Every structure is written in C-alpha cells, then in structure tokens.
C-alpha cells in the first residue's frame, strides 16, 4: 500500500513521463530530418524545434530520475508518449501535419499548465513560448502546402487524413495533469479546423481514435515503427553499460 504522499509523487512522475516522452520522441523524429530538409531554412527550423523539444524532455525526465537511464534503458512498453509523435516522418507534408496536430495540442496544454500552480507551471511557462513558435511554423507550412500547388495540396490532404486517427489520444485524461481535457479538445478542433480551412483543406472525416489508439501510447502500447526507432536511439548507450559520455 502506498501512502498518500508517495501516491501523489507517483502521479506526478507518471504525468512528467507522459509529457517528457512526447517531447523526447518527437524531437528524435525531427532529428532524423537533419541533412535532408527541402530548403536550408528548414534545416535550421526543424533542428530548432527538435532542440526545444529535447530541452523540454530533459527537464521533465530529470524530474522523474536520471534522464539518460530513462531515455536509453527503458523498453518500448515503458514509454508513455502518444502514438502521434512516434509516427515516421514520411514526406514533408506528413511531418508538417504531425507538427500541426501536436504543437496545437502542446500550446493549449502548456497554456493551461502555465496558468495554474501545479508542479509543471514553471516548465510550462517557458515551454509555451517555444511551442507558440512551433505552432506558427506548422500553420505557415500547412497554408503553403494546402494552398500551394495541386501536388502539395494532395500531399497535405493525405497527410492530414493519415494522422487524424492518432489525434484523439491527445485528449485522454492524464492523471496528474490538472487541465480541462474536454475544453482543450474543443479548442484544438476549432484551431485545426480554422487552419485547414484557410489552407483550402477539409477536416478529415474518419474517427479520431483507432480501435487500439485510445490512450494506448500512454499505456505503453505503441505502433510497430516505434520499436525500431528506439533500437536505433538506444543501441550505443546500451552497448557500453555504465559508461559516461
């Protein structure tokens, strides 16, 4: 039996892991773009966003324990990130759609956390400024691609559709996060609907959760590509147990 204090600590730890893993995993995916972006300015922008997210991840994971042990020595079933952030980069439109959905969520989330006095208020106050840039970047590119050429419109439409089923998970309540998930969800839908409309795109019609997707990532149930991603991420660290870098 846990005492109320340790119970509370465990809840905060769980929430920090959820947020930290989201940032860690998305940062890793964005890092995969290095050297392959469509223009030099995007090399800078994507790396910048990846670095912001990695910075958030490090603060959050350090609240839980040793950041490197947590990043490099947990197995796939112990990661608590939402499935959206682990989705492969795909083409630039898929990366942008993932950024649009996630940064819109993160801005609402950190906005709420920053205005409260919970254990994440300090981090959220700093992160919300970074996330506002990420959201702006994603929106600008959604507009350019959606309302660009026939090809870019089609690619952006496909990307928005393909990732739609991972967006419901964002609003599954996370214990320890003192936010109004329902209000966040409606604000998220309104914001995304507005951007997609301005980008001459329509809001995807399918369900926002798959049969497995509701709350799955938060419970350590991930998609297949995730295992390969962390195999690559962890391989060197795991090959030298106990080494310092």
């Amino acid at each position, binding site marked *: 039996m846990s005492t109320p204090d340790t119970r509370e600590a465990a809840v905060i730890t769980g929430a920090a892991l959820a947020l930290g893993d989201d940032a*860690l995993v998305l940062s*890793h995916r964005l*890092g*995969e773009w*290095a*050297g*392959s*972006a*469509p*223009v*030099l*300015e*995007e*090399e*800078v922008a994507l*790396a*910048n966003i*990846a*670095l912001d997210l*990695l*910075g958030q*991840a*490090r603060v959050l*994971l350090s609240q839980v324990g040793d*950041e*490197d042990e947590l*990043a*490099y020595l947990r197995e796939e079933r112990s990661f608590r990130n939402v499935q959206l952030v682990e989705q492969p980069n795909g*083409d*630039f439109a898929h990366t942008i759609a993932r950024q649009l959905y996630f940064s819109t969520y993160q801005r609402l989330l950190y906005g709420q956390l920053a205005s409260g006095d919970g254990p994440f208020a300090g981090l959220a106050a700093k992160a919300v400024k970074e996330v506002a840039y990420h959201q702006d970047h994603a929106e*600008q590119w959604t*507009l*350019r*691609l959606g*309302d*660009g*050429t026939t*090809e*870019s419109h089609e*690619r952006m439409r496909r990307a928005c559709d393909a990732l739609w089923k991972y967006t419901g998970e964002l609003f599954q309540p996370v214990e320890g996060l003192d936010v109004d998930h329902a209000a966040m969800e409606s604000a998220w839908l309104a914001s995304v609907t507005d951007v997609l409309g*301005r*980008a001459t795109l329509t809001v995807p019609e399918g369900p926002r959760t798959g049969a497995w997707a509701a709350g799955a990532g938060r419970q350590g149930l991930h998609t297949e590509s995730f295992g390969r991603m962390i195999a*690559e*991420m962890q*391989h*060197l*660290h795991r090959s*030298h147990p*106990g*080494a*310092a*870098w």
Partner: protein
Amino acid sequence: MTAVTAGTTETTGVPGVSDAAVAAEQAAYEAVFDAAVAADERIEPRDWMPEAYRASLVRQIAQHAHSEIIGMQPEANWITRAPSLRRKAILMAKVQDEAGHGLYLYSAAETLGTSRDELLDKLHSGRQKYSSIFNYPTLTWADVGAIGWLVDGAAITNQVPLCRCSYGPYARAMVRVCKEESFHQRQGYEALLALSRGTEAQHAMAQDAVDRWWWPSLMMFGPPDDESTHTAQAMAWKIKRHSNDELRQRFVDIAVPQAEALGLTLPDPDLRWNEERGHYDFGPIDWAEFWDVLKGNGPCNDQRLSTRRQAHEDGAWVREAAAAHAEKHKHTGKHGEAQA
C-alpha cells in the same frame, strides 16, 4: 572602400567613346582597386573589382558554403544514435549551426552577383567542389568528437585569417562562423576527453577515430605550396593571408600538445619537436589519396552527393508549393486571404 563605384566597363558602341577610352577607364578602376587592397581596405559589393577577383571569390565562398551543408551529413549520421541526451542536444545544435553557416555564406556569395540556386545546381552537378574531408565516413561515435576537435580545428586555423579577407561580406561572415566553430571545437575536444578518460572500450574508440581523422585533417589545408594553383593570386588580392603549408604547420603545432592533454597519440611516427625550427616536424602526407578523394574516389563521395541531390529533388514539390502560395497571396502579404 572609398573607391570608384562600378560603372560599365564594356564597349557599348556609343559614338564618341573609343575602346582606348574604355581601356583607360578600366586601368583607372584597377589602380583604385589595387590601392584599396594594398591599404587593407575592404572591397564591398558595389565597388569595382577585377572579374578574376570576383570569380575567384565566388569559387571559394561557394565551396565553403557547400562544405558546410555537405558537412552536415557525416555528423547528422550520429544524431539518432548519440549516447546521451546532452551529447544529442550538442550535436543537433552543431548541425543546425552548419546549416546557418551555409546560409550566411550563400548570402555572401550572392553579393557577387550569383544566386544560391545557381550555386546549388553547380554543387549537385559536380561543377563546384566541397571540402574533401567530408568524403570520409563517421564509423563510430568517437568520430563526432574527432571531427569537432580536428576538422573544426583545421577549419578555424584556415578561417581565422579570412576574418581579415579583403572582401567585406566574406570577412564579416567569417567572424560569425569562427565564433561558432570555436565553440564546436571545444565541445568536440571535450567529447573526446570524456571518451579517452572513460572505459577501455571508449578510450580505444577515441584513439581509433583520431587515427582515422588525423591525416585527412592535415589534407584540409590543400596541396603543398608548390602545387597550389590559386595561392599566389589569392594572397596578392589578400583573400588568403597565409600559404597552405604555413597554416598546416600552425595547426600541427597547436594539435600535438592537445593530443597529449587528451591522452591520445597521433598516427605519425615522424612527428617530433624540432628545436631549431621551433615547430613540429611531421611525416609525409599521402597526396595520392588526397588527389584521389578530390577526383571523386573517396569512401563517401558518391554517397554525399547523392544524398544531397536526393534531398533537393525530394524537396522540389515543397519549394514549388511555397512559391505558388507566395504568388497567390503576394497582394495581401498574408496567408490564406486570397485577393478579392
């Protein structure tokens, strides 16, 4: 430069303007240019400059810019495998800086009347080169540290004098680049030091990386002085301030004590202090390998260029979309508000 602002130097066929008059005007411009260079004044984009000076700078700055962006690849190769979150953040920031350096340098080249698209096209078609060092593979994590220490160290040795280069935009770009490069070099050194002082396996990894990167780093200074085709003219124009061999010697003299402090050896049995010269003597460089890599036969030449071309081709639809979007909305200056 307080020189004559460039006017036309071509024969326009205007009645009353003889070729002799044009030649005299040309000579006057050249005299002003030569005097400015002699007085260590900066040449600026609107100033008159000899065509060969312009072409030489475009070649050098473009090659420098290309090196920054091709140079992202060997390091980006380890971003997803960096062994700690701190090292991962440092490496991502570094690769991001390199993209930024590429941007400054393409902008500096553009002041000479070329365009980034044109230069990228020359890179992709193999008509312009990048530093031969980036044709070597990064086989272990320690290579990232070795690149920071040796490759960035060599680059800084080359680039610090360029901060006083006669062409203003290039010199100013170099000031910004050198600040960031020095930071990267210290981080690379520190990463190697952690390995050298780490486990036996980590130490061996660091030594192996230094063994593989030492000679290619010395080759970064270019061919020996007696085989360097551009050096004499570049020095006369004060684009370059020191010869290849001088800079190479300076680098060796700095690197040897650093290697000792790292607890690593350098793979050169002939390396020893020469009291008389006040410099380190070092063994012969394998120039056959240098020329071979330069000709395209290094371990990664094909891979580096095809990765770059692929990124460019894969990104074409994105750039077209951005251009189409800008065209649609150029009158509003805003996204998503089509002109009525």
